[in-house]
């Protein structure tokens, strides 16, 4: 079943009276419960595309349909995980995770139940009253993830959620994120520039070209989970996407 339909999205802005094209014409659709990555070199407009999906920016043309509704402006039906998590530093883990539920006036007992469940899957028991500055990178990421889930969105949008960490940590966070996702099975769209990350996490990878931001490639990753990074097929997907990415970069 199609969850999200992106239809001829176009984004331009004018600089010194000259029209600059960020996204030429992007169309794709995503099935329910899928993990889809949007891969592209920096400056290809992938973050802009995600911002448009979230409603933080307006598209110049085209439309986005989530379920059976047209999307315009930000809303709790789309959860967002920011590159640097954007946890509210003045709120504890508990207050952060409760925030979206309170905004949607979910009754108190239901709120408490959801909170307990989410804290459980994120393995954050005992840290409920910590401030974000007291959390490790992994805990911050897990808090951001369950905060985005707490509002019961229909889809999760993630902007390079592993962007700010070193290589070792990155792999560990990817594994944590995958296990969280396997427990929740929500539709995810993740933006990344890291081929390994895309292959490790996604059911499907969409490659954006750097020039005029349009889709260069769109292919499934049909490997069993959890994935073995040393597997031959895994390496094969990586090699193919790396070549795509190099080509995407050369076009710019």
């Amino acid at each position, binding site marked *: 079943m199609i969850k999200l339909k992106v239809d001829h999205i176009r984004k331009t802005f004018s600089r010194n009276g000259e029209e600059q094209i960020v996204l030429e014409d992007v169309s794709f659709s995503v099935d329910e419960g899928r993990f889809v990555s949007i891969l592209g070199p920096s400056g290809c407009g992938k973050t802009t595309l995600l911002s448009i999906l979230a*409603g*933080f920016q307006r598209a110049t043309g085209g439309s986005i349909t989530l379920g059976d509704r047209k999307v315009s402006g930000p809303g*709790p039906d789309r*959860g*967002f995980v920011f590159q640097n998590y*954007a946890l*509210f530093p003045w709120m504890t883990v508990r207050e952060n995770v409760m925030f979206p539920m309170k905004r949607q006036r979910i009754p108190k007992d239901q709120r408490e139940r959801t909170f307990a469940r989410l804290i459980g899957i994120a393995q954050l028991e005992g840290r409920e009253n910590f401030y*974000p*500055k007291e959390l490790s990178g992994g805990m911050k990421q897990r808090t951001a993830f369950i905060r985005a889930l707490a509002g019961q969105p229909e889809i999760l949008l993630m902007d390079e959620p592993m962007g700010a960490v070193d290589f070792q940590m990155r792999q560990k966070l990817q594994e944590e994120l995958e296990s969280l996702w396997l427990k929740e099975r929500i539709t995810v769209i993740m933006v990344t520039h890291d081929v390994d990350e895309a292959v490790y996490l996604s059911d499907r990878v969409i490659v954006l070209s750097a020039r005029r931001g349009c889709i260069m490639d769109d292919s499934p990753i049909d490997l069993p989970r959890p994935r073995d990074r040393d597997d031959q097929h895994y390496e094969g997907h990586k090699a193919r996407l790396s070549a795509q990415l190099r080509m995407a970069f050369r076009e710019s």
Partner: protein
Amino acid sequence: MEKITNQIPKNISISAFLGEKESLRVRLLSQAVSLALFILLWRRMSLYYNNQLLLPTPGSTFTAFIGLFGDPEIWENLLLTLERVLKGFACALLIGAPIGLLMGSSKIAMYMFDPLLGCIRQVPLMAWIPLSIIWFGLGNGPTIFMIALAGIFAVVLNTVAGVRNISPDYYHAARSMGAGTWCIFLRVVLPCALPDILGGARLALGSGWMAVICAEFIATSAGFGFSMVEAQTRMETEKLLALMVLGALVGYTMDKCVCAIGNRLTRWK
């Protein structure tokens, strides 16, 4: 006006080699040494000039300082002045913070207020005293006005900076979780700008304490500043110096109180 933070940078060379206890000892020792040097220099100078009217010795100033504690008139005046400072400070905060929040969140408010405030700020503070006497007569009115005026710009400018430095991600995050404008203001803008508002409050209290003494020299016949003028006209220089020391200590204590309240309110930082 520059922004101030409540943090004292750690001296790397000390904290790297010493434990917490030792570094505290080093700190107290260096503070004692600098104080002793200052008093020694003062004593040397006063002995050199040998004129109690011009520069009393630290010893006679200390005696006068102890004498202040037995003088009910001083305490009455000090309390009166403190009351004025707190009232003026409250005005600066209650008027300045909302203006700053408005200017930080709305471009139109910024266009409206910024040039006006920028000009008014350039009028030297003391130049307001004659006008404030015309407006408010003598006594509490002009002094409270002067304190509020001295502090309000620091509050406004710090608040504006605080609001403008809020990362757009926080707004986006709040919106995508279903927060409305009013909720974003209460739950995001206000707490996020609070450390800067408190920084402005600290500056405002400091300049208020300075402004009140000046205002009291001229525009009133009671208060701590008035006590100082009185000591001067009676040629009691050691009492004047003792009052200056007391003034410094009171100001320092108030500053520390605002810092402590601020740290308590922003434990998350």
